[in-house]
């Protein structure tokens, strides 16, 4: 697979940084090298947040920002279509959005015929499971379903490692539901 770089977009408190970390953990469990990092600055709840995951078969030496991601994942449905989210996304890269809309419509909104689109209504799924819009594990489910970058069971292992016992079950349920319900246009 070579290298795969992911940029996560959310708002402070949604769990974008945790999603980036969990994905890196899962990738390490799958035998890859991986690192995760947030956009560096002063964090505050509600503000736009970016986080990054870098995955490779070879050791990752650099600590440079990801400028041309292979995938962008949009946790906040209100950010779908924003220029900042599309910035640098590779041609034939993945645009993965939390939205009720279908992927064809998203592709029209973002105006990029050269990218693949995956959508999942993560907010609805998360409200059913958590009674709160905590969508990060759902979006990882959508990412791994669409891209196949890491096996689902490795993400589940990472979730088990990362969360306290009582949060493991609901997070895995949400992860699987998102994995199953993702819609894709390539």
């Amino acid at each position, binding site marked *: 697979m070579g290298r795969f770089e992911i940029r996560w977009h959310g708002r402070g408190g949604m769990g974008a940084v945790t999603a980036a970390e969990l994905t890196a953990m899962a990738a390490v469990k799958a035998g890859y090298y991986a690192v995760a990092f947030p956009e560096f600055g002063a964090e505050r709840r509600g503000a736009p947040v970016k986080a990054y995951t870098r995955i490779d078969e070879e050791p990752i030496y650099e600590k*440079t920002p990801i*400028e041309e991601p292979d995938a962008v994942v949009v946790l906040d449905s209100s950010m779908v279509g924003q220029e900042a989210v599309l910035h640098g996304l590779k041609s034939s890269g993945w645009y993965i959005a939390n939205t009720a809309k279908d992927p064809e419509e998203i592709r029209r909104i973002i105006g990029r015929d050269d990218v693949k689109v995956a959508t999942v209504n993560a907010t609805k799924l998360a409200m059913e499971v958590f009674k709160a819009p905590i969508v990060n594990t759902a979006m990882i489910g959508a990412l791994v379903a669409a891209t196949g970058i890491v096996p689902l069971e490795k993400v589940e292992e990472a979730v088990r490692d990362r969360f306290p016992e009582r949060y493991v079950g609901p997070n895995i349920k949400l992860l699987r539901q998102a994995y199953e319900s993702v819609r894709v246009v390539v």
Partner: protein
Amino acid sequence: MAGKKKLPLSGNTAIAYAAKAADVDVISAYPITPQTTIVEKLAEFVANGELNAEVIHVESEHSALSAAVGASAAGARVFTASSSQGIALMYEIMFIASSMRLPIVMAMATRALSAPINIWNDHGDFMAASDTGWVMMMAHTNQEAHDDVILAYKIAEHPDVLLPVITAIDGYFMSHTIEPVEPIEREEALKFIPKKVTWRVLDPDNPVTMGPLGTPEWYYEFKRQQHEAMKKAREVFDEATKEFEKTFGRNYEPVEYFMMDDAEYALVAMGSVAGNVKAYIVREARKRGIKLGLIRVKLFRPFPAEEIAEVISNLKAVGVIDRALAFGSSYGGPLYGDTLSAAYIRGIDTPIVNFVAGLGGRPVTFHDIKTMVDATLALDGKTRKDVPKEPYFIGVRE
């Protein structure tokens, strides 16, 4: 990637795990970005009962290091951490800790100094500490950041050394980046660094005075002894890293050579930028047939002058990347100054050029590294007389 269990840890958390494994007795610190989560995590370990240590809440970094000096003088294994303005505020006490020969370990998440206020990464704070008499190391991975804390106590508490040690990581680029880290457990750490008071401590039954007036009859001898202790620190560093490798299987050298076996050119760098250079060498330079290597300085004080001069003597040209400026100096960047003196004293004629890059958190990109490599290659066939007398300021708006 078999072996022991790896945890996804930020640079800060990796350091906190190491301080826990070292079973520190006293943590005296004042939070500052981007170092904050080191001390937060340690406070959590103490609150959970995972670490039996005294956390001293202080009102400033000056007090944090003062309390660390007091606790160390009482025989405690002491840990603190800081960055930037915090280091600047500790400055007075840093000289006192080293001169009183107290084996304090301080982690530094390097960050630019004000003004203007800037919470992001460069080496201004680290380089400002370079003449304070502390042993200084800088890591370039989170695993190394973790291991350095364990190594630091080994060196600091060695009876021939007894000097405080700084273990640095790059703020944000490492402090906030998650990498797989294999943490050292307390039991194995304490076999490597047994808790034994090797230094003179305050004891009511055998009273001593510490840090009194040193008149002209005596002061100079103290400084001469510190100079010797620093030289000893180098010997002990070499012993400690050998034993570390035998125990934990990871090898560290004062200078890391990357792709240097057949190299004709090299960049000298420290910290996370050294990682960027490694990636550039593998992904770009070598693919284009450029015989470029990296000389990564891990141990900054005492400076590994002999090794660096030796490796440079065989090269066609060398570029030194500085993440700080020594304003008004004859050289430009501090790492360049040390590299240049090491080579000059040994009569080495290889052209060595200086690059200043990435101040105040500006990323040092592949494009920047290419600019530096091109400028280094341009010195092929030249001598040191041909080297620009001013540093190249990489990525700045003029």
